[in-house]
């Protein structure tokens, strides 16, 4: 009973839920502010995403007549809930370890695919041709990046699992604990292909330039989000804010968890995630141009996939050589 309450709290309050939402929105605000600064502008206030959300709460949600209403309205809800749960699955080194009953890395992988699927559903349910284009683009992009992320996770899991004596582990807690003892995977040459592949994966998953092809507002008018307005659109904003926390948190857990405990670990984690957001997302977003969907598709089938396969092979070979 108490563990269930603890799990509920984890989903609704501390690493998931409210905390992740506030952090995600703050990250988005910092992103916009710093992007403006990099461009020599002042930019919006830091808490602009909160204002946006409040504003969207006051607007009307319009459902197009051609849309399938249930799917249209359920899609953002399902996406946000999936992200809420996955935020509770991300361990914060030295502060929080997710309950094993809630799920492991595999569950997280499935949940990470949900927002993309929700966007696709939203696009196709909206009955707008732009939504349909967004749908097909999102699908192509997902097909391209889902392969590498599975292999990356497998490589990290194998690396930890083999060192711990079993074949492969899918427990993020274990991966984090291993790195706390043996040092970051980021500095482990065998893991470099995986790190590189992850560096290609997260912009695509977060939908930022150069891989924001499905939601390109200059080409397909924000694609799947075109028909959304008011609170429903707000839910999508919530979803993408949570996603930023989840994906960056996953990156931290996989490659660079801090070896501290207590408050220091928490502050360190916050610093890590903010730095990752500003360097990895903002600087990239501001300096890059958008790829075409076919370019991105071919690119993902070439480099990240190759790197991910190489990382699995490298881990397997290293383990074979060691034993």
């Amino acid at each position, binding site marked *: 009973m108490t563990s269930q309450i603890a799990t509920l709290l984890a989903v609704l309050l501390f690493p998931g839920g409210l905390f992740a939402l506030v952090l995600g929105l703050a990250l988005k605000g910092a992103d916009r502010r710093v992007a*403006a*600064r*990099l*461009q*020599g*502008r*002042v*930019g919006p206030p830091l808490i602009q995403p909160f204002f946006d959300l409040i504003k969207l709460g006051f607007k009307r949600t319009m459902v197009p007549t051609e849309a399938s209403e249930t799917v249209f309205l359920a899609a953002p809800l399902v996406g946000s809930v999936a992200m809420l749960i996955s935020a509770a699955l991300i361990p914060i080194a030295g502060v929080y370890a997710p309950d094993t009953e809630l799920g492991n890395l595999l569950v997280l992988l499935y949940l990470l695919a949900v927002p993309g699927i929700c966007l696709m559903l939203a696009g196709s349910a909206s009955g707008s041709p732009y939504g349909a284009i967004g749908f097909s683009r999102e699908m192509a992009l997902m097909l391209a990046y889902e392969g590498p992320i599975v292999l990356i996770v497998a490589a990290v899991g194998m690396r930890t699992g083999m060192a711990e004596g079993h074949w492969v582990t899918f427990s993020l807690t274990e991966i984090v604990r291993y790195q706390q003892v043996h040092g970051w995977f980021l500095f482990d040459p065998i893991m470099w292909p995986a790190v590189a592949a992850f560096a290609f994966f997260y912009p695509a998953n977060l939908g930022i330039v150069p891989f924001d092809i499905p939601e390109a507002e200059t080409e397909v008018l924000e694609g799947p989000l075109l028909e959304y307005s008011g609170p429903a659109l707000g839910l999508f904003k919530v979803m993408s804010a949570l996603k930023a926390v989840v994906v960056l948190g996953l990156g931290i857990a996989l490659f660079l968890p801090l070896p501290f405990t207590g408050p220091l670990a928490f502050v360190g984690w916050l610093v890590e995630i903010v730095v990752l957001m500003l360097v990895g997302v903002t*600087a990239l977003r*501001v*300096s890059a141009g958008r790829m075409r969907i076919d370019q991105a598709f071919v690119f993902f089938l070439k480099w990240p996939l190759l790197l991910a396969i190489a990382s699995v092979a490298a881990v397997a070979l290293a383990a074979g050589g060691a034993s």
Partner: protein
Amino acid sequence: MNFLTLFARNLWHGPYTDVFPFGPATTPEHLRARITFDPKQCEGCRLCEKVCPAGAIRFTRTPGGMTFDCWHATCVFCGTCEFYCPTKAVKQSNDWHLAHEQGEKYAQVEHGLIPNQICVECGAKALDTSPAVSHIKPPLSETEVSELRARCPKCRNKYLRSRKTS
């Protein structure tokens, strides 16, 4: 790697943004914006009305004289009126604060009145326009100009003819 130096410079230097609308705005001195009109200098030639491509300027005869109206909501800031105006009575200022709410749409007008006067010589009613003297040789003195101004067009002609012969 040009963009990286650009980033570094922007991060270091800070934003280049104007404080407006939270403070005073910088305006170039020669910005072409709101039209101003000075009825004292106008010759009443109505050239500006004729050349205005947007039809923003309109002169109307009223019992009190002749009114000048320039509707800012249709003026395209081309500056043609100022270019052709012989006395620069109509001028472009650099005041661009023209945004207004819908209710004030038809109040966005530069209005001027060239009043009627009584000719000092013949007593006829005529417009108190500035006399066209720029091309007259030898140039008129101040008092001559004011004397000329106080007359109606017919008497002005007479005045100038008498000045030539004397």
